[in-house]
């Protein structure tokens, strides 16, 4: 499912966050949204998830206008993982069942339990099924939260800083898990991230934001030293090491 954003404008009060914004997110691909704090990364994800209403512009899922979709229909197409997680006193299995809310109003069906069990097995989390969320490590919790979004059976997955506060091992594990699902299920994935090198390692496409506008968008070719230096307001150098990009402060 392709997401296309056109002429998007958004402001918090008088502060403009996004201004005349256009972008496309492609199925089966991971799009990294890069920019400094306040560049509009999280806001963009929230607008696509219909959690914020833009002043102007449209967001289309294939040929459906997002604004015309009912919340339930939207939730069956689109999963959102917030930057900060509330950790209720639930077991992992119960927490994942929450992901079936768009499909149920009164009670979960046996099918929902099977979908949860499938996602748990798929993510290698079955051993955690009966654990309390509060007992999980940061990396485990992040995987569980992403699993909850996958239980929605979405076509589009939006992740707000999925690797923030994780150690290196867990950053790689989370990104690898997301990329695997994106490839296999043709998921359209967009995520905001601060670690440019991790983004360069896992993302297929990049959206570079500066002051609420798209400074550059495209494949790895947009990660040029000059562009990145403008995005981050700090001189950066781009190196190639065994065919991979390495971005360092100058």
């Amino acid at each position, binding site marked *: 499912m392709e997401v296309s954003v056109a002429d998007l404008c958004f402001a918090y009060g008088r502060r403009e966050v996004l201004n005349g914004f256009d972008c496309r997110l492609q199925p089966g691909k991971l799009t990294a949204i890069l920019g400094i704090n306040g560049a509009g990364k999280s806001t963009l994800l*929230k607008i696509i*998830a*219909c*959690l914020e209403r833009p002043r102007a512009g449209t967001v289309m899922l294939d040929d459906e206008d997002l604004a015309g979709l*009912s*919340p*339930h229909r*939207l*939730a*069956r197409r*689109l*999963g*959102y*993982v*917030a930057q*900060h*997680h*509330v*950790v*209720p*006193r*639930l*077991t992992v*299995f*119960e*927490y994942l*069942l*929450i*992901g079936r*809310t*768009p499909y*149920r*109003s*009164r*009670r*979960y069906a046996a099918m929902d*339990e*099977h979908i*949860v*069990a*499938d996602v*748990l*097995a798929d993510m290698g989390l*079955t051993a955690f*099924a*009966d654990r*309390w969320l*509060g007992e999980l490590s940061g990396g485990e919790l992040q995987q569980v939260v992403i699993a*909850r979004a996958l239980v*929605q059976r979405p076509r589009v997955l939006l992740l707000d800083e999925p690797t923030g506060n994780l150690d290196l091992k867990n950053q790689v594990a989370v990104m690898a898990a997301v990329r695997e699902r994106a490839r296999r299920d043709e998921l359209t994935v967009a995520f905001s991230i601060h670690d440019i090198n991790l983004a360069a390692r896992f993302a297929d496409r990049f959206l570079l934001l500066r002051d609420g506008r798209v400074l550059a968008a495209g494949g790895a070719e947009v990660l040029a030293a000059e562009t990145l230096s403008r995005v981050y307001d700090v001189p950066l150098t781009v190196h190639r090491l065994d065919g991979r990009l390495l971005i360092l402060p100058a």
Partner: protein
Amino acid sequence: MTAPAGIDLYHRRRRRRQLWLAGAALLLAGAALVAMTTGAISVSPDDFLGLFGEAPTGLAQRVIWHVRLPRVVGALLGGTGFAVAGMVLQAILRNPLASPSTLGISQGAAFGAACGIMLLSLGDAAAGSQGVQLNRSPALVTLLAFGCSLATTACIVGLAALRRAGREAIVLAGVALGAFFMAGTTVIQYFADETQLASIVQWTFGDVSRATWPELRAIAVVVTAGTGYFFSQSLRFNALLAGGDVARSLGVAVSRLRLGGMVVAALMTAVIVTFFGVISFIGLVAPHMARMLVGEDARTLLPLTALIGAVLLLGADVLGRLLLAPVVLPAGVVTAFMGTPVFLFLLFGGRGSWR
């Protein structure tokens, strides 16, 4: 074919939770039996059986029908209502300190009721009637109690909607609102005559023996309908546990759920407080106890909270009758005494209920 490992574990835990529910239901039945048989006049099982036959004639049967049974039913309904309202407020505000009494909703209702009592007796005085019966027209008292508790709720909802108001700020605002309404009630008391004063002061001694059968029916309708509504929204409340944004991304109309929950919780509180007076701590303590036992899945948390609330209020009422017998302490006084140590235990000594 056996179920996948995850499902198996989940079902086992669900069964354990159902055992907790069954245990709490048994405890409640036991407490109700003790409550029915405890008091100045002893009653035998035969007297209970006699109730199902012809109209109650003997003293014991009249005691059961007119004194004990309404009291037990009142404690069941009141305990359930306060506990469920507390649980819902805690879920909506994501604040473990939220409850009808800590958010000032109970005090608001009591203030409204005090205004109602004054207005009613003013009307009676104008009509030149003597010996004011203040509970004769509870509709106005209920209406004012409900109006004031709703106004308190509106303030809390408004504050909760403010982006900058943190969880602590909301509870502190509730404490301030509660103090404000207490001050208002005090002013009314200051200007009240002896009869009015006695009636108003009764409010501060929440007592489950106060309601008559028709009033209990009204409470039963509101508490049952409210609890049923919340139970029907269990999956949505579960989604809300993951946070407001996540719940919205799951298709839940969060604002409507929060507003509806607050209004229904306020209605339940207002009706109970109107007929029983202020009974604190049940709404705070019962959800905590239930949460420690079964977690926050609303499908089991809600019924267990309701059962625990009923057991606590029933227990408080029995204790009130036994502690200083033959003097009968109102249940509201006992819950206030009982609630403090229980809450402090949950806070500092429990198995990490506090997060």
